[in-house]
């Protein structure tokens, strides 16, 4: 459990005078489900963009899947999977075409892709949808499929940026079962969410506020330290300190 896959030391990212990430320090371990929380505008997106090789840090040391994000950000891209809140499959392509497209983009051999397509559709129990276009599928199915596609190439880490937005509770539940399964297979899951009940499912969570990480621990320890019953209360205390002062 203690093999480090993401290591961030003194990460600073500035846009002009604005400091989006102010001296971040944390480590994420292999097979861990790491919740990355924070109010809108706290600097989560900036940090994820750096971790996924989309943008480079202003200063600090960032290593993702053994790759230095400072100097070789483009090498990170092959090692990670990514799924964002906005829906990431092409609606006018069929299930199979989408899978083949993404498999190809990640450099998988066509034979391997075909084999994985079969396994995957069987596992998700939607073999019958193989040749249907995505627009015909219900949202829940699409979301599960998008996640499966994001881990199709067996990445070391998968980044999920608010993956369950707009999904019903039952599907969310099933979605988290998929996340657990993925993590137990050794893929690290780095997830952001606004649903605090989901934060409870994470192995560890970090909470950001105004560019800094202000709390990082297991959900259980955080609740104990803040002496509250839920992660939601922890979050509100940290993200909106002015509420508590009054």
């Amino acid at each position, binding site marked *: 459990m203690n093999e480090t896959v993401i290591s961030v030391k003194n990460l600073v990212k500035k846009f002009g005078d604005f400091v989006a990430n102010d001296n971040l320090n944390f480590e994420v371990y292999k097979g861990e489900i790491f919740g990355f929380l924070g109010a809108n505008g706290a600097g989560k997106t900036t940090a994820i963009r750096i971790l996924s090789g989309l943008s480079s840090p202003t200063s600090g040391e960032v290593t993702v899947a053994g790759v230095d994000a400072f100097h070789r950000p483009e090498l990170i891209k092959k090692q*990670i999977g*990514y799924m964002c809140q906005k*829906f990431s499959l092409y609606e006018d392509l069929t299930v199979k075409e989408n899978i083949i497209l993404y498999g*190809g*983009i*990640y450099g998988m051999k066509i034979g391997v892709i075909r084999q994985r397509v079969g396994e995957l559709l069987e596992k998700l129990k939607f073999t019958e949808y193989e040749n249907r276009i995505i627009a015909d599928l219900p949202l829940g199915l699409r979301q599960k499929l998008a996640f499966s596609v994001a881990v199709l190439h067996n990445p070391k880490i998968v980044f999920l940026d608010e993956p369950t937005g707009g999904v019903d509770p039952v599907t969310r539940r099933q979605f988290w079962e998929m996340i657990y399964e993925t993590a137990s297979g050794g893929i690290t899951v780095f997830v952001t969410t606004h649903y605090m009940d989901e934060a409870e499912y994470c192995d560890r969570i970090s909470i950001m506020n105004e560019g800094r990480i202000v709390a990082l621990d297991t959900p259980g320890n955080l609740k104990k330290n803040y002496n509250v019953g839920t992660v939601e209360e922890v979050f509100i205390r940290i993200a909106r300190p002015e509420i508590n002062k009054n």
Partner: protein
Amino acid sequence: MKRFLGFVNKEFLHIFRDFRTLIILFGIPVAQILIFGFAVSTEIKNANIAFLDFSNDEITRRIEDKIISSGFFNRTSDILNYNQIDGLFRKGKVREVIVFEKDFSRKLLSEGKATLDIITDGSEPNTATLVTNYTLAITTAFTQDLAKGSLTGAPQIVPQVRMYYNPNLQSHFMFVPGVITLILILICALMTSVTIAREKEFGTMEVLLVSPLKPVQIILGKVTPYFLLSFINVILILILSWLVFDLPVRGSLVLLLLESMLYILMSLSLGILISTVSKTMQQAIFISLIGLMVPTILLSGFIYPIENMPKIYDFVSAIIPPRYFIIIIKNIMIKGTGFLYVWKQTAVLMVMTALFIGVSIRKFKIRLQ
């Protein structure tokens, strides 16, 4: 490379799966060529005219025959007095009435001068001007013939007009090059900007950027299908205008196709540039249509000659790429000139292409920061 091909394949799937895209790509060019070629015609064919002949002698009948046999006019019922003219125009029965004065040939032969009135329907100024000019040309030719016969006649100076390259003033000579110019820039710029804006709007661009695909591969993958399809479009339009309008390519076909490729490339890079400044598909469509279609139709010299514009429009038109391509394509297709006559315009298009690509790359990098 395999990644890239997979991506290009996906773009083709997008295009062929969307009926509307296909219509825009292939239906509109064909429709435009046919509409501009047939309907928007600036020539006169079978314009109805009537004669009011107070003289009714040999010469007036010969003039009448000559006018009718020109093929531009169609004789309707002749009239007997001035009062009937107004009625004919009001009912829209004729475009022109030609009036011969009394004793027309006697006056012409003895006094050397006779009057012929040309009365036209001025509510359609363009047609009125055209029929007047045609009639004048025919009667001038006639009096010239007459003068040749009689040596006594005073020498007349008659201007002779001849249209080079397009002696019959066929309007599709003007429209086909214009339509190719308009269609290519619209399709290329519109389609590329929309397809890139679509990825942004649906959020798939994020996923592509996080993937191992390089940004340049994403952009090239986006434009490659449109480059191929637009090129097929050029060939389609040329074949169509050759079959339907008999419009030849007088110059080198190879040069024409190469110049078209350059123009397509320029339009595609313009489309990429538009996509970098537009966040949604609607913005992209709006910028492409208003920003490109209107200037191309009005200011590129497609319909209205640049020489006739106020100086300020001339300057504005200088930054519009279609202006240069219209000159190139007209030179090659209609005048049959070679590269030496169009190298300046070619150079301008090349510089513009480089500029658009350069600015796009800069914008793209800033976005990634």
